């Protein structure tokens, strides 16, 4: 049991972080807090992917210590460099999460200009009063 905990604890931490974000998205009434929850959720996914690329042992970042003029003859030990692929994918994912957050904040500004509030229940009440 302790061995399982020590070998998988990173996933457990990210599951906890992801559930915090999901709770904020579902239970909070303020739309900005929902947006913050969405960002926490995305951060949990990004950390999960980055932790997949980790290798233990004698490992450095995936940057080769020599240029292209020399070093072709050196054999590259794959186990000596971190997995670069999750880093690349998460670079893309961070950009996409920033883009979605920006569009969501723009929509929130429009909602505030129309309703003068960002509380979800007050907005629904205003809509009901306008409908009847």
């Amino acid at each position, binding site marked *: 049991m302790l061995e*399982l905990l020590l*070998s*998988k*604890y*990173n*996933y*457990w931490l990210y*599951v*906890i972080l*992801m*559930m915090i974000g*999901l*709770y904020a998205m*579902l*239970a909070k009434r303020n739309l900005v807090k929902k947006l913050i929850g969405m960002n926490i959720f995305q951060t949990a996914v990004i950390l999960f992917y980055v*932790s*997949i*690329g*980790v*290798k*233990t*042992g004698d490992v450095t970042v*995936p*940057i*080769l*210590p*020599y*240029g*292209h003029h020399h*070093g*072709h003859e050196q054999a*590259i030990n*794959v*186990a000596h*460099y971190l*997995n*670069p*692929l*999750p*880093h*690349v994918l998460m*670079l*893309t994912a961070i*950009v*996409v999460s920033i*883009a*979605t957050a*920006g*569009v969501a904040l*723009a*929509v929130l*500004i*429009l909602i505030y*200009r*129309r309703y003068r509030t960002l509380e979800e229940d007050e907005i629904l009440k205003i809509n009901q009063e306008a409908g009847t």
Partner: protein
Amino acid sequence: MKTFILALIIIAGSMLIYGTQDMPNWGDPQSPASVHVSPYYIKRSIIDTETPNIVSSVLADYRGYDTMGETTVIFTAAIVCFLLLRRRDEDEGDR
């Protein structure tokens, strides 16, 4: 309602934690993510792209189409923000 959401989240979280039993251990060099294409990138990056930084060579060379789509996403988000937030004179400013 809050207790229902809390129960839902505890169920979802415990299912995810149950699923991590099949995941590779933290830092395992033989994990499935590290044995398929990533050894090819690490070995061939300096020969194919002459770039010491493997992350940038994968981002801009091997997976250049991915990065092009990413710039499309940023461009679309910028256009959407511009269209949403611009002042519309005919609306008498009540938006």
